[in-house]
């Protein structure tokens, strides 16, 4: 596959597209907060992949991290500032919630829309670099190393950005929970959420242990790492 892509074989690019367009689109949406911009970013990503095909190593695993890296760069070019992102996120969130109250509308669908709006507001509360790592690691399930490679930053930086982002999201979610039935909490004008408290055992403090670990992709799945905190002392004691 890699050799065929390097050689510029159109059929190989069609396969690449079929395999990863969906994921790239999801990722692009998280980074642009706009459906049609996400589509453009997705399309551009694959055209970029074609242009950059000579950079594909003949050896290696999945090309997904590489594509997601290109998509991240492309999405970055869409908005000059984080303020533009916030504007887009709030507009998309508002559009999601602004659905006429049809009786036949399925409750589930309304819930989906409400939850999407919450997620967008949450993403808008992050700084761009935080949003990028959270989209790569949590959204698309890349491990820290792959995300680091995709972004061209050290693994430790991925870990620390991720931990900061998570804390922000958590505190935001708490704020949402405090007002369950009303409209979700709006992001403050400057997009900042309450500063997280420094912690002792957060992932930021042990980036080396995070290598190769994968984030949970779905809510229902068991979270890798949620046991480690309790098990680790014993393991280390045995070494």
């Amino acid at each position, binding site marked *: 596959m890699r*050799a*065929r892509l390097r*050689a*510029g*074989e*159109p*059929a*190989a*690019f*069609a*396969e690449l*597209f*079929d395999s990863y*367009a*969906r994921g790239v*689109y*999801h990722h692009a*949406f*998280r980074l642009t907060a706009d*459906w049609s911009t996400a*589509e453009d970013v*997705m*399309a551009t990503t*694959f*055209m970029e992949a*074609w*242009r950059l095909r000579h950079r594909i190593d003949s050896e290696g695993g999945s090309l997904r991290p590489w594509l997601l890296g290109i998509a991240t760069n492309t999405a970055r070019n869409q908005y000059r500032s984080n303020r533009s992102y916030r504007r887009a996120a709030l507009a998309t969130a508002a559009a999601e919630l602004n659905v006429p109250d049809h009786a036949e509308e399925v409750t589930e669908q309304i819930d989906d829309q409400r*939850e*999407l709006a*919450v*997620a*967008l507001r*949450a993403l808008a509360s992050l700084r761009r670099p935080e949003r990028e790592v959270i*989209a790569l690691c*949590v*959204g698309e399930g890349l491990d820290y190393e792959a995300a680091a490679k995709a972004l061209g930053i050290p693994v430790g930086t991925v870990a620390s950005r991720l*931990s900061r*982002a*998570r*804390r922000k*999201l*958590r*505190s935001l*979610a*708490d704020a949402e929970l405090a007002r369950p039935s009303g409209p979700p909490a709006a992001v403050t004008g400057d997009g900042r959420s309450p500063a*997280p*408290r420094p*912690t002792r*055992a*957060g*992932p930021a403090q042990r980036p080396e242990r995070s290598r190769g670990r994968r*984030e*949970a*992709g*779905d*809510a229902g*799945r068991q*979270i890798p*790492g*949620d046991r480690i905190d309790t098990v680790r002392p014993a393991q280390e004691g045995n070494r």
Partner: protein
Amino acid sequence: MSANTSRPGPGEWEEAARLLSRTARDLPPGRHEHHRERLMAHIEQAQRTQEISPRPEKARRFRLVRPAIALPALAAAVAAAVIVGTALTGGDGNGDGPRRLATGPALTTRIGAASPNGVGRLLDQVSLVAAKDDHPVLKAGQYVYIESKAADTFVKNVDGRVSLASHALHRRQVWYSPDGTKGWLIDPAVNDSPEGETLSLPDEQGNTPVAGLNHPSYDYLAKLPTDPGALLAKIYDETRGQGNSPDQEAFTTIGDLLGESYPPAALTKALFKAAARIPGVVTVNDAVDAVGRHGVAVARLDETSGEREEWIFDRTTHVFLGQRSVQVKRGRGAEELVKPGTVLFTSAVLQRAIVDDVKQVPARTS
């Protein structure tokens, strides 16, 4: 804050994952295919530029639309696997475009002698014959079917090494609806799958294609003026700024309208009459179509590229056989390799008919 939230860990992992899982929504129906087609068109165009095609503009027009891979890549892969070993190249991946067609050395021919004399007379005879081909009018729901054979020579560029290569002679079958929005194409120089591919597609911007001189539909052709003067004026007007010279572009445009279309006889007649009024049009005493049929040709030399486009007619019946493009003067720059006598493109029209559905082939008449 509660103890649960002050301590980072499971709660935060979960929260982030839960939030993000809500943002995964799929593309609206059809958009995936749309973008894949755009990507394929993009790649194809990039490759064509890379090939330093001796005739980027013309190649596109002769080959008509290449709407990319419409079938799942898997199907194409399976098909390719089946076909391996039957003189087809398969995916050797050296970027020379079509994957199911053998390539070979440049095609060559003997260059026929050109003369400015007798063009008017020949085109008169040709248009008289064309006027007699009074086929039924195409109705909605029907399709124009055209079967031809074609081959071409192209400049291949592999890692900077430039050489001439050709696509072997192959059959091309095309179906078009009257308004040109629906169709099917089977052409191994273009398709990835032996089944061919649909032409019923929106263009790159997602718009339904609008017919024009460079991409005419049957309906469009049927509405063109049949007065040669008015027709020619329209052609000059609408191709202004295109091609290497206005006269050459007008001639080429008429050639394209003749090649893969089945317009009402009155228009075919008008096209030939109009061509007779273009300066620089000559007769060629001997020319061969793609399937080896010899005849006489109406031709015009493109002074810029050194290519001569020839419309070939049967010497006695004056029936249109096909057309080809021959290098008669040495090419320049990237086209230096293309020596005089090289056949850049050749085709032979084997059958034109009206059928009731795509992929339907009429009983052969003749």
